[in-house]
Structures are given as C-alpha cells and as structure tokens.
C-alpha cells in the first residue's frame, strides 16, 4: 500500500461520505489487495473481482466499522474473506480450515544443502524469481493465505490472526509450515546450482 497516503486517511471523512478520501483510500490499498487476490487465486480476472468486491464492501460497511482493529487490518479481512469465498466456490474440495497433520513431522526439513551463500545473480535471476513465484503457488491454500498476509503484505501475527479470524497460535503454526515448505522447494531448486561437493547428496 502507499504508506504516505495511508497516514493521512481520515476514518471520519470516510464515514461522512467524503468521496475524495475514499478515492485516496482505494489508491492506497488497491496494489496490495490486487496482489493478495492474484497470489491466492492465481488469475488476473479473479484478482480484479476480489479488488472490486472488497472496496464495494468497504464502502457499504464503513459506517459500521468499530475500530476494534486498524483500518488496514479491517480492509485485509474483507479482502481475504472475498478471496477465500471465491476459492471455496472454485475448489470446494479444499478445506481451508485444514492446516495439515497435528504433528510437525511431515514438515521436518529433509533438504540440507546450504545454498544460502549463492551469489545474488543466481538467487535473484529471472528464472529463480519465476520458481519462487511457482513455489508460493504450490503452497496448500490454508498455509498460503497466512504466508501472503504475514510475509508478503507484512501484517503482524496479531493482525493476520484478526484478518483471518484464526488464533495467533494457529497463525504461527501455519506460517512456520509455509516457510519450511518453501525452504524445501527452494532447496531442491538452488541445490542444482551448488558445486558437486556442496550438494549434500
């Protein structure tokens, strides 16, 4: 979002129907909300639907916004609900409450090659960035939505839990599993760029 604009947005002005203020709010958040929709749903048209539906609901409900969370978290909550609702329609077989096995055993690291010292030219190459994006898309949805809000949109654990109506413990569990899942995927990818003696095979 555009932080400079965000700090100046007045909730009172939004409540009083100030259209100029609403337009500034839309511009401050539209990039983040569109990205959230795109990363969660994977298609531009779906991301656009999430974007439009989110701001229509913001407009419809701003009078009832009780400031129990920040304006930012409230908007993310609406957007996440919109995106998850679409996901349920598109893929009813996915259980968004399912965070995986009770135990963490299935998430224990298995790839132990140290690729972290690889040069930036390899880590951040165009191909690597594509793989990174692909790896995020491969995360199971219940983990992906937490990961997007916490590690991409930079919400705190508390804000993420408020936006998704999950306990903080649940958010932490999902976040750890998402990070470990991505680490495994990236380890498989980057290991190929390591000298043979460092591949730990």
């Amino acid at each position, binding site marked *: 979002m555009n932080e400079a604009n965000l700090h100046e947005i007045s909730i009172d002005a939004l409540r009083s129907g100030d259209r100029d203020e609403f337009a500034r709010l839309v*511009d401050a958040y539209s*990039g983040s909300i569109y990205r959230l929709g795109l990363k969660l749903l994977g298609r531009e048209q779906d991301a656009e639907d999430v974007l439009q539906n989110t701001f229509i609901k913001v407009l419809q409900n701003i009078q009832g916004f009780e400031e129990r969370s920040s304006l930012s978290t409230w908007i993310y909550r609406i957007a996440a609900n919109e995106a998850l609702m679409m996901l349920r329609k598109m893929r009813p077989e996915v259980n968004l409450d399912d965070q995986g096995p009770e135990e963490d055993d299935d998430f224990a690291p298995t790839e132990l090659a140290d690729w972290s010292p690889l040069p930036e030219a390899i880590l951040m190459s165009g191909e690597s960035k594509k793989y990174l994006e692909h790896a995020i898309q491969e995360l199971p949805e219940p983990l992906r939505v937490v990961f997007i809000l916490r590690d991409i949109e930079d919400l705190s654990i508390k804000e993420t839990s408020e936006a998704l109506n999950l306990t903080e413990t649940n958010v932490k569990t999902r976040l750890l599993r998402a990070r470990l899942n991505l*680490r495994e995927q990236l380890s498989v990818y980057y290991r190929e760029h390591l000298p043979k003696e460092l591949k730990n095979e």
Partner: protein
Amino acid sequence: MSDHNHIDIKCDQLLGLLSDYLDGQTEDDVRLVFESHIADCQNCRVVVDTTRKTITLIHACNDKPLPIPDEVRKRLFNRLDLDDYLKNSAVANK
C-alpha cells in the same frame, strides 16, 4: 533431522522456535539457547540460514506492490462511481 539422533529432541524444539527467532520475537535467554544449538549443529544451522534466505528472497521479490494495471484501475473506479477522481488520484500517486 535424521543423522544426529542424540539431539533429535533439541532439533525438533529448535524447529518450533524458528519463526519466532527469525522474526526477532524470542526472549534473550531462548535466543541464546537457540544460537548455542546452531553453533554445534550443522544441519540446524543450514535450516536456519536457508529459511532466513528464503524469507529474504520473498521480501526482495515482493517489496512493494506494483500499481494495478491502468485498465483494472479504470474499471475499479467506474464500479465505485469514482470516475471523477480517476485522473486526479492517478497523478497524486505518481
């Protein structure tokens, strides 16, 4: 981690603390125990370093959201009945 069974429990415990550690959310005493463990455990050190790098790379690739495409913004403002603000707001955000 599989190849040093004598400290499996400690490795498991470390894994549970990994996110908090990388986010700077661990108490000092826990952090010291954590760092003492990875100083002696090569596999855990690799997991910590590569997880940290994973998060760093994701942040680097997603630093700030790109502006939404012009056509998407135009349709959004139209849907919200904000067409009058389309031009002004676009200028204000550049």
